[in-house]
């Protein structure tokens, strides 16, 4: 019998079809956030990295983008920028890159501004329409400084991107409190079974399923969920160990042996899968539940402790979960159970034991939230859906403390503040790419203090004409940054480390100046990939963003993320 298949009732919409491969990552909620966003790109230089970033945002369907760029399309643009054509020579780069990007996705709105940044930034509310701002180097540092300050006031996340030759870096300035609930942790690390603190329903379920364990027939014995086996043997173990569960590695291995010995091998299969699963789970599931330091950081944040009538819902819920944690010495149960060998009905019943506990924990947290709302006299209640998501991910929430990126001020040097000590350590760490970052800072100082025509006009790009002479100058600037940093940290770096750090910095400067301000398409495309990924995280508030600077070395194919 085949019959006819009824009409496609639950088939995907055309949007779901187009975005299928990404909806599997950030779901409809993330997609909705993308579609509501409006990204501003302030473009300059060869301008490839910014356009490549937008390409990766237009494709997944951001709502809106605007390109601010007063550059005229020239021959050299055509050899590096994919979103320009020969016929557009002499036209505005903002207009043509915008139009060719728009072709990628008819659902995305795009516009352009050809006004110079100098006058654009002076207008009140110039940044107001935007959700997020991308700024590419080179840009006059006093403009960057103004822009960064305005964006901070308006709480708009801002990215500063540098891409030259084989190197790139970008720094992200997020709001001072940027909490993420939906961090998408690795499923392997999220299983929370509470085997060391079973609640009555779980104990009862275990007692039922392990009743007469040794007398069971082979079929039943081989289908007792491993979780029940562990709880059963833990009870047995406690009887001979002063009521204590295995305390250390040695005891856990001994306990594992006990479990393994319970398996039958005289059955048809010559072994039991459920026992194999139990044995494999001993070491990782018998650890007391510990709350990650990143979660404690949220609980200890002043915003969590000192709620006001205007606190964002996140802090209200965080406070409720914190008091829940204090009362129960455990976070709300997430409620999911990994797949395991079991009869279908037993497994579903086990799932329900966990789900019910998760629901009752949620109910308690929700009640705490409502009480807080009442106490604070809030008019708008937090959505239950949000409280639920928070409870599910409580062990993995994350708070990013956004801070401004470095803007070099002429004559003032670079300030490292509380990051000075960590930065100095990076100088001698071969895995840290901080010296490339310092080379970029030196690049910025050079451009802000040298003009192309010596009349204070357009900035001079190091290496544009005379690579050797400029290398020497920029290297000198980089050395000064290093010395000032060591001084600010109040420490010394001994030789040979000191000389080695300087000689490496000199090489990185030389490689940057070699490019003479050129972007290589591959490095721009790769960096555009990284930046767009971080934009998506910042907009969807899913996954964990870079905090706050990422450096790419295209010579050795390595990245490094540093916090400044």
């Amino acid at each position: 019998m085949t019959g006819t298949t009824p009409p496609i009732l639950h088939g995907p919409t055309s949007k779901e079809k187009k975005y299928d491969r990404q909806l599997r990552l950030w779901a409809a909620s993330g997609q909705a956030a993308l579609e509501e966003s409006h990204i501003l790109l302030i473009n300059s230089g060869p301008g490839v990295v910014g356009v490549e970033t937008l390409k990766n945002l237009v494709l997944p369907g951001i709502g809106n983008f605007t390109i601010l760029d007063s550059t005229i399309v020239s021959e050299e643009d055509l050899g590096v920028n994919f979103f320009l054509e020969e016929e557009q020579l002499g036209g505005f780069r903002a207009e043509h890159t915008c139009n060719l990007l728009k072709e990628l996705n008819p659902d995305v709105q795009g516009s352009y501004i050809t006004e110079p940044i100098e006058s654009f930034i002076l207008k009140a509310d110039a940044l107001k329409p935007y959700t997020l701002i991308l700024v590419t180097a080179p840009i006059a540092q006093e403009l960057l400084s103004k822009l960064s300050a305005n964006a901070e006031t308006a709480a708009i996340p801002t990215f500063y991107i540098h891409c030259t030759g084989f190197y790139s870096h970008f720094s992200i300035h997020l709001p001072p409190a940027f909490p993420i609930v939906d961090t998408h942790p690795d499923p392997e690390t999220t299983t929370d079974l509470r085997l060391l603190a079973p609640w009555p329903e779980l104990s009862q379920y275990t007692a039922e399923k392990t009743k007469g364990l040794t007398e069971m027939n082979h079929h039943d014995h081989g289908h007792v969920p491993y979780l029940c086996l562990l709880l059963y043997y833990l009870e047995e173990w406690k009887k001979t160990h002063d009521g204590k569960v295995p305390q250390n590695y040695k005891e856990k291995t001994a306990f594992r042996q006990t479990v393994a010995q319970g398996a039958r091998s005289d059955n048809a299969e010559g072994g039991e899968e459920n026992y194999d699963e139990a044995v494999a789970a001993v070491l990782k599931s018998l650890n007391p539940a510990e709350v990650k330091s990143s979660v404690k950081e949220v609980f200890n944040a002043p915003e969590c402790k000192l709620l006001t009538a205007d606190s964002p819902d996140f802090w209200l819920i965080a406070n409720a979960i914190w008091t829940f944690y204090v009362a129960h010495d455990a976070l709300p149960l997430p409620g999911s159970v990994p797949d395991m060998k079991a009869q279908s009905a037993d497994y579903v019943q086990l799932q329900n034991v966990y789900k019910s506990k998760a629901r009752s924990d949620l109910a308690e947290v929700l009640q705490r939230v409502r009480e807080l709302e009442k106490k604070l006299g809030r008019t708008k209640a937090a959505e239950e859906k949000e409280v639920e998501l928070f409870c599910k991910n409580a062990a993995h929430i994350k708070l990013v403390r956004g801070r401004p990126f470095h803007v070099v001020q002429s004559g003032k040097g670079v300030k490292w503040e509380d990051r000075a000590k960590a930065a100095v350590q990076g100088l001698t760490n071969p895995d840290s790419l901080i010296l490339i970052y310092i080379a970029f800072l030196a690049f910025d100082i050079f451009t802000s203090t040298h003009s192309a025509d010596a009349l204070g006009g357009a900035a001079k790009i190091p290496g544009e004409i005379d690579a050797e002479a400029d290398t020497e100058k920029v290297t000198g600037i980089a050395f000064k940054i290093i010395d000032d940093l060591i001084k600010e940290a109040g420490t010394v770096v001994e030789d040979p480390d000191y000389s080695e750090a300087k000689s490496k910095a000199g090489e990185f400067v030389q490689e940057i100046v070699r490019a003479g301000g050129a972007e290589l398409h591959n490095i721009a495309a790769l960096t555009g990939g990284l930046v767009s990924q971080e934009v998506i995280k910042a907009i969807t508030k899913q996954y964990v963003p870079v905090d706050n600077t990422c450096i790419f070395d295209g010579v050795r194919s390595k990245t490094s993320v540093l916090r400044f």
Partner: protein
Amino acid sequence: MAADPAHMNGADPQRLRWKYLDKILSRPGPFTDPDWEPGEAVIEGLSRAKIFGAGGLGCEILKNLALSGFKDIHVIDMDTIDVSNLNRQFLFRHADVGKYKADVAARFVEKRVKGVKITPYCGKIQDKDDDYYMQFAMVVCGLDSIEARRWINATLVGLFNEEDPDSLKPLIDGGTEGFKGQARVVFPTMTSCIECQLDMHAPRAAVPLCTLATIPRQPQHCIEWAHIIAWEEERKDITLDTDDPEHITWLFQKALKRAQEFNISGVTYSMTQGVVKNIIPAIASTNAIVAASCCNEAFKLATNSNPFLGIPETDNYMMYTGDESVYTYTFQHMKKPDCPVCGNLAKNLEVDSKSTLQEFIDSLAERPEAQLKKPTIRTEAKSLYYQSPPALEEQTRPNLSKTLSELVSDGEEVAIQDPAFQIAFKFKLVFKK
């Protein structure tokens, strides 16, 4: 001031367009070889190099190679454009759905980047022979399937002939899954190859048939049941087409019904599609990162403008993870002397002497170090099992129910062939103690 060819080139209107690229190609850097001579010869060499690209990262790879100064690019892709490609494969528009990817992509990039020649072939990489691959300076692949990767890898290893240095074809391979990916460079026979690295990409364990048939617990189990068992039972005469919405709807509804019988929740249309088509999440940003990394290596390799991955005794593999901040791990994967493709020693395979040949064959599909789905197995002395031709299959079929200890001795070498690969894999069957 030293003569700066980049500056001098400004006079040539043809090269004006490549001003940025020429800066790098006309100046030595701190990491370039002291003997490297930047300038005309390097630029010439780059435009003469014939390069081959393929795979799901094809759009990115073609764009990047064209804007890296390569002029003669060949591309193979057997797929036609699907609407679900449009969220990342930026050379395709809604009106192109159903057309061949290789054709549309080649025409688009030729139009956008003047002076580049792109030769498309709409078919399988396996359609082409050694002579075809011999013409390229290097191969850049972003293939979706592990089988195609292994095929091109084995082909390029097979091409290498010590007498002829031109027969060494570097393979640059990229792959992505969601926010993760990798880029690697192989110098066939000299450095670790795709086969040496096979166990780093273990296949997902299949759910046992008895779970599907009798004790489903997850919504995926119900979908697999509909896919593997119910379809066979009820629609045997119709070939399942996972792109046909009617077929997916049928499977979805079967799965849903079964899930309801077992009180299992969570079966959706999207999940049905995901399980049946083995859908891997894919986004524009990760594809951009991995493809650009591959093309950056190709560019450095073609021009020597900086050190590249894959130089023997140095890093050859970059692993990328982007879901939690940005993390890369760049390292040297060591060549394996017992690699079935580039090594000359047989690889040890631990087996249970009591398991049957059939069980052993089934396990080969899942073992990370083998991943062979239709193996034909023989020892030096006898044929253990042949998948084809039918006469030989029939003749060797009785061996399937025999135990390994009846068929081979402990430590005996067997050769395994699989229609997906053109080489024989050598394994030593070592009995589990």
